[in-house]
């Protein structure tokens, strides 16, 4: 019995109530949010694996046990989410966006609850709380109309997901009479050999929810909208932390697949897992392809998130020790670099006032710290050693190849290359090139923001060259789900199937080459800064051939040839399906509304017809 587990939930709730009261005083609201995150972090320090807590909830006269249970996975997730949240809220102290602190705290409460609970009632409650709080959070974006639409779209998807989970958990309850997650999972594992289709049905009800929350392929349509139009300071949390809830849920249910003895297999994988690998791959490729051409930088990185989650899903669906290690490791890495990227984006957007790539450019001179953070962020995201994205991607490829999924691996490689392209596009369009005159007065972010950026830079480099600090806890998780953990040679090594990579070595060599580069840069000829339009060709200045400052920007039609190349992909509109569903519902609604014609006589007729139908039913029965 460790009551600090329940305080993990209650502290943020109390903080949320206080923050909600002080809502009008923005700084106080943010300060309370930050301090609650910090306090919760201290509470997590006092939490260790194996702690349990239970209490009874009076539900319809009978007691429903609510229980908490700390596993390796939950403590890992708690740490990474809360540490990141603390950094983010610290950043938000200076921020001007309309993120609501009390909603973030509600999400924190749900976050802690989801990661520690061992009963489905609590899980569902927390899941709903998290979903709704994030929906309301999305509402406060810069572009109000669009963020409203995004929130509505997200809400509908999210509700659909939670109803699916509703069905799943109550079906389990009907079967076992218990809400406990661990015993229900054990039950599912025990009957999977007998009734594989039943188990598949129930688990897929849960998986729909998780896939919606993580934004995996057929349900990814809300992701770009919600990420792009959420408040700038909330998007990092949405992308870095909240997408991981789906991954967490999948990890809970995946061990069942170990028991699927009766299922046919493909490449040594149960076919369900095989399908999920492909879903992950499709998500990764789709995210990449769609990210190329985005002009809205947040939308671009939203698709990037999508792509990365595809990697994670593909890896963990293999359910081998390398796969799971790689998946969780990549989840952590994605949290770190995507969080850093979105924080820098928030900084850039708050300073420049736009999120359009074609309107930015040359900002590195004005915001050097942000520039470097962003640079390291995209290096990580592209998987360039020694930054932190490398190790996990490397492990993912290894795990795929080990299962002989060559075609899928090649697609993932291509996606990674594509990732480099769009990341470079963003990098170049925002920071390099010529500075637009609109941004002559842009300043670097305030000190608090700079501190956060330095911290994130440090973290991305540190966890890149010292992966052992993450791989060790990940190994514990892998062990706890019943697989053999990978050997960890030392803090500096990523141990794969075929070879080990000495990250510090790579780090040093890269650093030395950088030093060389800088030396060359400084001893080379002096360069002159010119303005964007200071240019001529054949005696004509740019205006003469019809270029405006916007169209003269580098990022204007950045990848136009590729856009033509991938144009067929653009025509696949998955969200067209959901929109069609919505339109159909609306048309049905208008038609159904005609039932109520507003004539007393016809209402009487309805009543009489209803009566007659009942009479006939009684007659027939």
């Amino acid at each position, binding site marked *: 019995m460790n009551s600090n587990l329940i305080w993990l939930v209650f502290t943020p709730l109390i903080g949320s109530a206080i923050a909600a009261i002080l809502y009008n005083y923005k700084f106080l609201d943010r300060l309370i949010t930050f301090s609650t995150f910090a306090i919760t972090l201290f509470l997590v320090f006092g939490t260790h694996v194996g702690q349990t807590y239970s209490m009874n909830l009076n539900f319809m006269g009978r007691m429903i046990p609510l229980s908490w249970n700390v596993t390796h996975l939950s403590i890992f997730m708690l740490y990474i989410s809360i540490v990141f949240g603390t950094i983010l809220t610290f950043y938000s102290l200076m921020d001007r966006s309309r993120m609501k602190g009390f909603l973030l705290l509600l999400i924190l409460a749900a976050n802690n609850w989801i990661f520690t609970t061992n009963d489905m009632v609590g899980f569902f409650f927390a899941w709903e709380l998290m979903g709704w709080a994030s929906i309301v959070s999305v509402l406060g974006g810069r572009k109000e109309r669009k963020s409203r639409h995004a929130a509505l779209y997200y809400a509908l998807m999210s509700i659909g997901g939670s109803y699916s989970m509703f069905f799943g958990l109550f079906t389990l309850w009907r079967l076992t009479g218990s809400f406990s997650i661990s015993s229900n999972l054990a039950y599912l594992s025990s009957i999977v050999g007998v009734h594989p289709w039943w188990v598949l049905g129930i688990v897929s009800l849960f998986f729909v929810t998780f896939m919606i929350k993580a934004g995996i392929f057929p349900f990814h349509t809300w992701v770009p909208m919600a990420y792009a139009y959420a408040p700038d300071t909330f998007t990092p949390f949405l992308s870095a932390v909240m997408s991981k809830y789906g991954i967490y849920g999948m990890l809970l249910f995946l061990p069942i697949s170990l028991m699927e003895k009766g299922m046919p297999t493909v490449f040594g994988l149960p076919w369900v897992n095989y399908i999920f690998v492909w879903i992950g791959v499709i998500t990764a490729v789709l995210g990449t392809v769609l990210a190329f051409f985005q002009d809205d930088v947040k939308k671009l990185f939203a698709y990037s998130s999508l792509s990365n989650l595809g990697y994670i899903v593909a890896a963990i669906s293999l359910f081998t020790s390398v796969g799971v290690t790689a998946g969780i490791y990549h989840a952590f890495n994605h949290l770190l670099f995507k969080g850093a990227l979105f924080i820098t984006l928030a900084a850039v957007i708050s300073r420049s006032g736009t999120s359009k790539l074609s309107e930015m450019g040359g900002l590195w001179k004005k915001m050097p710290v942000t520039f470097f953070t962003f640079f390291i962020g995209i290096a990580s995201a592209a998987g360039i050693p020694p930054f932190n994205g490398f190790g996990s991607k490397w492990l993912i490829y290894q795990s795929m190849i080990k299962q002989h999924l060559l075609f899928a691996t090649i697609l993932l490689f291509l996606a990674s290359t594509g990732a480099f392209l769009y990341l470079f596009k963003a990098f170049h369009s925002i920071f390099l090139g010529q500075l637009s005159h609109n941004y002559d007065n842009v300043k670097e972010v305030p000190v608090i923001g700079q501190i956060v950026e330095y911290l994130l830079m440090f973290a991305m480099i540190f966890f890149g060259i010292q992966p052992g600090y993450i791989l060790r806890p990940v190994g514990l998780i892998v062990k706890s789900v019943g697989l053999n953990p990978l050997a960890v040679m030392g803090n500096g090594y990523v141990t794969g199937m075929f070879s080990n990579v000495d990250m510090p070595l790579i780090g040093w060599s890269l650093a030395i080459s950088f030093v060389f580069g800088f030396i060359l840069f400084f001893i080379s000829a002096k360069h002159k800064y010119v303005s964007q339009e200071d240019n001529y060709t054949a005696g004509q200045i740019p205006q003469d051939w019809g270029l405006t400052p916007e169209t003269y920007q580098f990022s204007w039609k950045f990848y136009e040839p590729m856009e033509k190349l991938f144009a067929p992909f653009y025509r696949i509109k998955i969200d067209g399906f959901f929109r069609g569903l919505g339109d159909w519902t609306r048309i049905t609604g208008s038609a159904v*509304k*005609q039932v*109520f*014609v*507003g*004539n*007393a*006589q016809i209402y*009487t*007729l309805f009543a*009489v017809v209803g009566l007659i139908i009942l009479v006939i039913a009684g007659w027939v029965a």
Partner: protein
Amino acid sequence: MMQEFLQNYVYLIGSMSLIGIGLYITLTDENIFKIIVGLNIIESGTNLFMVAIAWYPKAVMPIYTLTNKLSINGKVIAADPLPQSLVLTAIVIGLGTTALALTIGIKIFEKYGTLDVRKIKEAGR
């Protein structure tokens, strides 16, 4: 034969016919006041039905008088007084409903300027 038919069914048929007629008026006539009349006829049918189930052949009235005995050797021979009292209640309730309906009808005529039931609605449903 005929007598038996009358005893068994005449009130029931009467009450059902009243209900049917009332319902027909309510469903087809477009004048508000005729609809109210239809409702009233339905009510009368119901009341007749209730009185009909209280009565049986050769029943005496359920009032003690000098000459009227209500029971013979422990067997009650009076008509059932309970439905009659229910009818009394139902009539009064029907009266109240009718009065209110008429009032609403008058007010509708004042404000909408029509008694056509199809026109008593707002635009934009």
